[in-house]
């Protein structure tokens, strides 16, 4: 093994996610014994990390759009990629990412405008999942328990609503994957 070029380019998270998903789909076609443990674990963990970052909602057009919008600020590639990865929603976050921010983006208004451009509704992050949401189980049917049951039912209703939107996301995901799966044989042919 020989490394020819240590860094061809920096990759934004969304592009990495795309390749990871592609590799996952490709892997699905192989018989189980050929699968490598390392690869599977890594693909799974990487995808899980991206699930909670803005990368999961980004498409190529978002990247192109943001890149165009950031042109006037004359940011470096590294800075643009970080804005893509983190989607800063406050001025403080932008100042972290952009070096010598005060000298390069002089007015407050300019900074505010940059924040507005960085935060795209369609790519807004979903909050990290909180696992400690379940509540205690009570076996005795008391007044309190009945209320709990009602709460439970209410919550279920809310959950099903959430689930509905999740389903929607997963359907989009399936469509996305489906198109990728069709792409792969073509790639293999070339």
């Amino acid at each position, binding site marked *: *093994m020989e*490394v*020819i070029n240590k860094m061809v380019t920096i990759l934004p*998270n969304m592009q990495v996610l795309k390749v990871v998903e592609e590799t996952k789909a490709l*892997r699905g076609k192989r018989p189980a014994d050929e699968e490598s443990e390392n690869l599977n674990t890594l693909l799974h963990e990487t995808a899980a990390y991206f699930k909670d970052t803005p990368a999961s909602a980004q498409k190529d057009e978002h990247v192109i759009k943001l890149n165009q919008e950031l042109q006037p600020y004359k940011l470096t590639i590294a800075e643009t990629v970080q804005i893509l990865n983190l989607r800063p929603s406050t001025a403080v976050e932008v100042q972290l990412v952009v070096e010598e921010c005060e000298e390069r983006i002089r007015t407050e208004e300019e900074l505010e405008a940059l924040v507005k451009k960085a935060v795209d509704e369609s790519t807004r992050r979903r909050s990290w999942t909180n696992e400690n949401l379940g509540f205690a189980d009570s076996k005795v049917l008391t007044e309190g328990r009945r209320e709990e049951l009602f709460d439970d039912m209410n919550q279920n209703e809310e959950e099903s609503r959430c689930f509905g939107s999740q389903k929607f996301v997963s359907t989009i995901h399936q469509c996305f994957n489906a198109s990728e799966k069709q792409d792969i044989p073509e790639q293999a042919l070339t």
Partner: protein
Amino acid sequence: MFVLSEMRDIVSILPHQLKNDLKSVITLKLNKRFANKVIIDLGLCICLFDLIEIGDTYLLPGDGRGHIKVKFRFIVFRPFVEEIIEAKVIASSKLGLTLSVNFFEDIFIPAHSLPAPHVFEENEQLWYWEYQQEDDEPPAKLYLDPGKVVRFRVVENIFKDIKPDLSDEEAKKQKSFEIIGSMSETGLGCTSWWTQGGEEEEDDQMEE
């Protein structure tokens, strides 16, 4: 966080694998070989990006395999110095915090680069940031407990060549790739401290 690296290697293909499409066999072999491995001074290999060049297949006497020289590009996890990354706290000790990005868990924030002024709570083994408030109220304790999502700045990537003949215990302590980070800046630390909701939280604490 990720870079694309160009590499060259020789892939050997067994005769029975030739029935499959050559490109996908090579892809699989390279992924198996490099995925989740640290290459010194390069980083943690994630997965194959594309194949650039597939050379001629060489057959050697006494060997049924076909040896192919390939040039390819691999996705490698190697954050650049000064990069801002989001991660989860997984452990905390007197020395500092250990963070994880799910697929990589050797990120360390030494105690001296936590948000200042920082205090270590011996009983709970937790760090907190003593947030100085206006007025004369006592400072708020903003905890950095495991599970929280934090933002940090990369200070250094450390690569270490680990000898293969170490005992298990020794091997556990050694890290071939470690990232040292810092949180001593405005905007770093828990993400919730700096977002709109976080500010409200802080306000609540102030009221208390």
